């Protein structure tokens, strides 16, 4: 173990040295950045996702969707008459690498904006870089809220656009007793904190709460606790491989999703198909987008993606957010008539609706997306059948009024 520690220590000191060098070079050449990044006929943007490591499986597809949008925009004349040139960097599933690469993109490549990030840890690591350089990050994934930076456009769902609509649906369906299972890190902990406040507020019962370390595969204790708590439904915020172990052991214990309903917040089409649909069939998920949405805009997006990346490719909610982020940025640039991140941000918050595969959406003044929530039930073909929706688009609430009453988002 000592060796691993030393290795990490060395790496981080190398990062600091690199950061210091970058900072020095940035100070000397800061003035020209505007001109170098944007030439007569091209504008550089960054794409920063994990292309290697544990998160690669999810993030590569978001990168693909982002590139698809850029390609489509370029085919239709680009932005303000310029071709978009994407600089792709690998965050390597390491928050420190995300911060380092964000700095590289902004200060070396002098990109106009960056699309990327997935885990909350990666976002939190990049945040100071974007605030210091006054650049703009377009973040595509649902998250736990409780954060509101002027230098990030949050297009993934806030808790009140995913978790709370799911609770609303479950309450309407008559489920009264809830068991919360999650991986032990910031998203499940915060999501469940909010859920508990709302359970209490609505007079519903919290049957139990259990956390497993990220990547953990032993659910014997958790399942015993679920059995003795005997809940009506499980709200599942497990991430990654743990889901396979959880559903497998629940099934072996005689509690498959058909017996005890499960509502998951990190299982999309791609994850369900990779896990084997037999295992998760009949479980529920809440997202702002499902591949099965019938609209024409979605059909043509799915068609274009599958033509480019394989006809069996599954499309998920974060991919669509990665895709629509590019279009939102384009619309904001055109409205502002400038690539300057501050002006683009102002324009993006006051943009009106932009057409996307999930219908027309717009950014709220707090920098998050106004969007509809859908509850889907997983079928044997790996697609979700939409069983309920929030009806109208929901205004994003970065700070839940019950869980974080004293905080508000002032941008």
């Amino acid at each position: 173990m000592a060796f691993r520690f030393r290795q990490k220590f060395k790496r981080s000191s190398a990062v600091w040295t690199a950061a210091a060098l970058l900072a020095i070079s940035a100070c000397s050449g800061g003035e020209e950045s505007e001109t170098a990044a944007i030439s007569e006929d091209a504008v550089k943007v960054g794409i920063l996702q994990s292309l290697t490591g544990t998160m690669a499986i999810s993030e590569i597809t978001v990168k693909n969707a982002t590139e698809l949008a850029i390609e489509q925009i370029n085919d239709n004349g680009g932005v303000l008459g310029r071709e978009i040139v994407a600089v792709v960097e690998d965050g390597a599933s390491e928050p420190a690498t995300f911060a380092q690469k964000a700095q590289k993109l902004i200060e070396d490549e002098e990109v106009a904006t960056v699309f990327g990030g997935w885990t909350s840890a990666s976002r939190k690591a990049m945040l100071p870089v974007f605030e210091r350089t006054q650049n703009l990050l377009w973040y595509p994934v649902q998250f736990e809220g409780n954060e509101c930076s002027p230098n990030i456009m949050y297009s993934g769902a806030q808790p009140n656009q995913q978790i709370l609509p799911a609770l609303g649906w479950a309450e309407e369906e008559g489920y009264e007793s809830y068991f919360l299972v999650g991986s032990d890190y910031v998203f499940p902990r915060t999501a469940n904190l909010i859920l508990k406040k709302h359970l209490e507020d609505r007079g519903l019962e919290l049957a139990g709460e259990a956390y497993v370390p990220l990547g953990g595969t032993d659910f014997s204790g958790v399942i015993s606790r679920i059995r003795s708590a005997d809940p009506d439904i499980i709200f599942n915020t497990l991430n990654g491989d743990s889901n396979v172990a959880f559903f497998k052991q629940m099934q072996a214990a005689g509690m498959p999703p058909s017996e005890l309903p499960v509502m998951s917040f990190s299982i999309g089409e791609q994850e369900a198909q990779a896990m084997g649909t037999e295992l998760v069939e009949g479980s529920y998920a809440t997202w702002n987008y499902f591949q099965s949405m019938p609209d024409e805009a979605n059909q043509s997006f799915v068609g274009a993606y599958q033509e480019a990346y394989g006809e069996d490719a599954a499309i998920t909610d974060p991919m669509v957010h990665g895709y629509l982020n590019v279009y939102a940025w384009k619309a904001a640039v055109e409205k502002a008539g400038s690539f300057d991140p501050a002006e683009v941000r102002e324009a993006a918050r006051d943009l009106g609706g932009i057409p996307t595969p999930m219908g027309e959406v717009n950014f709220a003044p707090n920098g998050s997306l106004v969007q509809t929530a859908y509850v889907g039930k997983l079928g044997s073909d790996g697609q979700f059948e939409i069983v309920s929706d929030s009806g109208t688009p929901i205004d994003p609430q970065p700070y839940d009024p019950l869980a974080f009453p004293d905080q508000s988002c002032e941008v």
Partner: protein
Amino acid sequence: MDAALLLNQLFNGISVASIYLLAALGLALSFGLMRVINMAHGEMLMLGGYLAYLTLIWVPGAPGILLAIPVAFVGAAAMGALIQLSLIRRLMNRPLDTLLATWGVSLILQQAARDIFGAIGVEVRAPDWLNDSLQFGAVVIPSARLFIILVTILVLGALALLIRRTRIGLTVRAVNQDRMMAGATGIDAGRVDLVVFALGTGIAGLAGVVLALLGPVTPSVGQSYIVPAFLVVIMGGLGSVLGTTVAALLLGLFSALAQTVVDVSAAQMLLLLFVIIFIQVRPQGVISIRSRALDE
């Protein structure tokens, strides 16, 4: 706390202990004999899991999972023999270098699995008779876990027979007690090392198959079991099969019972604390083999 939960957790503790034991036996054997810490041991579990996956593609259903056990045993043992011959034998008496070299092997094997099978796990589907559960009053016992306990008992029995009753076992015990003296009586200690190391990795491969019944097979699956396996080996007393078994039971039951009161993460922390306190009180482990060698 209700009695049903407690009974369920007692069973789970034994089940977890049997998994720890299968993962730790190979480590205990090779450490006891060669004083070699094999950091790539977890990857033998992974290899076993992927071999089970491949076997089930070839022979689906119930015979497949039974066939996968010998296939994974032989495959992982062969890989272990390769590592022993190409690396560990050449780094004899250099424990730190062995540690680093086997860690390197572990990284290479993980990346190879990632390149061949993809970063996301593959699924080994248990046949239906392993997907059931038996109910005794309030205690529910999943068949897969019962199966794992049975496999562990069989492996332990076979290993005990091998070590106590066969000629190979005799030479293993001899080398374990005093390498130089055993060598002087004509035992080829190098060959004994090879056999024991391959046997240990083979058991790990077998453990990989039964683990695949409970969770996904991923390139990093071995990493989740290597730490508990090391704990079991440390607590068991070096190289003793009986000590390893007792330590696995202690740790499995402790972790399962801790989980009735706290979360899995906190239970892991308590488990580490428990081991630290235990080896403060009994540094030699549950059972220590007193050898007559002068260097101990």
